[in-house]
């Protein structure tokens, strides 16, 4: 029996929300491999929660046709989830016990189906390490995305640190640019808008602009990159950070992707870009 992550919507104001919770409790009491997910923890990306989601077979119990729980799990990078909308499978005349039993059977059936499916080779699932990194294997490349950071579609990350924001390049970007030998950041004190150029990176393969993921004033450079620009390749989320900003508008973070969303986006890009390279 595979490890199963069961996410009940548990919305008490929804027609089937309370049933989803009762089903989860009943199944968990008889199946030690089953993890009951928390929509609240998933929403805030508690590391253990996202790890459980991404490293397990996922069954979602939606309490109504809005499918909030399924949408939430998919936004955090869950793939191949099996969703059950409970109101489609129960009659209002059924007793509470009958409703719970009917849905329990459906979940057990879904788990059996997933166990069979998993014997066929599928796209690699994302995994999460103890350091809070989501990883996905793309052909021979391993893609890393750090949890708790925000990501732009230009492949830069922003991390909130007190009243400042640290900016760096994503692992996908450093892999695509390959060996970086020069990093230039715009002057301290300069104000850059979201989408503006804040410097450039040169590698053995190309030259790219650093496109700022948020608006703000540049207040610090990573001085180590002057002598060791390769840190961007070696440690894109830690030692290879690029610059610190005083942000102008923190609501811009809403325009960026969460780690789960970015992993999905980056995996698709990596399949196109890195996979192409791997097969050339």
């Amino acid at each position, binding site marked *: 029996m595979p490890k199963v992550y069961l996410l009940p919507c548990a919305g008490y104001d929804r027609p089937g929300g309370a049933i989803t919770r009762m089903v989860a409790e009943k199944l968990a009491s008889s199946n030690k491999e089953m993890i009951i997910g928390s929509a609240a923890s998933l929403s805030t990306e508690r590391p253990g929660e996202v790890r459980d989601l991404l490293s397990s077979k996922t069954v979602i119990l939606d309490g109504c046709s809005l499918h909030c729980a399924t949408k939430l799990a998919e936004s955090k990078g869950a793939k191949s989830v099996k969703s059950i909308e409970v109101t489609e499978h129960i009659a209002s005349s059924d007793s509470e016990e009958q409703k719970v039993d009917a849905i329990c059977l459906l979940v057990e059936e879904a788990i059996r189906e997933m166990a069979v499916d998993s014997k066929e080779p599928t796209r690699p699932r994302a995994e999460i390490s103890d350091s809070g990194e989501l990883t996905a294997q793309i052909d021979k490349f391993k893609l890393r995305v750090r949890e708790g950071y925000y990501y*732009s579609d*230009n492949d830069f990350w922003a991390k909130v640190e007190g009243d400042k924001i640290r900016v760096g390049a994503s692992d996908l970007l450093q892999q695509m640019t390959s060996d970086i030998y020069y990093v230039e950041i715009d002057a301290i004190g300069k104000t850059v*808008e979201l*989408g*503006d150029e804040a410097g450039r990176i040169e590698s053995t393969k*190309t030259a*790219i602009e650093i496109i700022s993921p948020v608006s703000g004033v540049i207040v610090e450079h990573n001085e180590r990159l002057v002598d060791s620009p390769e840190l961007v390749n070696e440690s894109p989320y830690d030692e290879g950070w690029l610059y610190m900003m005083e942000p102008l508008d923190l609501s811009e973070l809403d*325009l960026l992707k969460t780690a789960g969303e970015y992993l999905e986006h980056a995996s698709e890009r990596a399949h196109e870009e890195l996979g192409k390279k791997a097969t050339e």
Partner: protein
Amino acid sequence: MTTESKPEKTFMGVDRLKIPWWPRIDYDKCNGCDGEYDCLKFCPHRVYKPLDDPKRIEVENPYNCVVFCKACQKMCPQDAISFPEKSEILKLIKAERGTR
């Protein structure tokens, strides 16, 4: 082939086809770098197509262009490439997100 358009692509959650970001060519200036086509050589996203008679560059796949990237503009020896205002594009993206 990697040049086919993929209309399902989004940028910052907005359909890429709704974002008018791609290079504009000033044909009074572009001379195709006398057949060298520096922008074409530089850009890995197959945005450009070279024209032969007269030698100049054309934007063939505008939606392949990476939104906010202006790197090719700096490569152009004739200063013939320009882009829309980033602030206008950002305004448009925010407005589109607001209407979803």
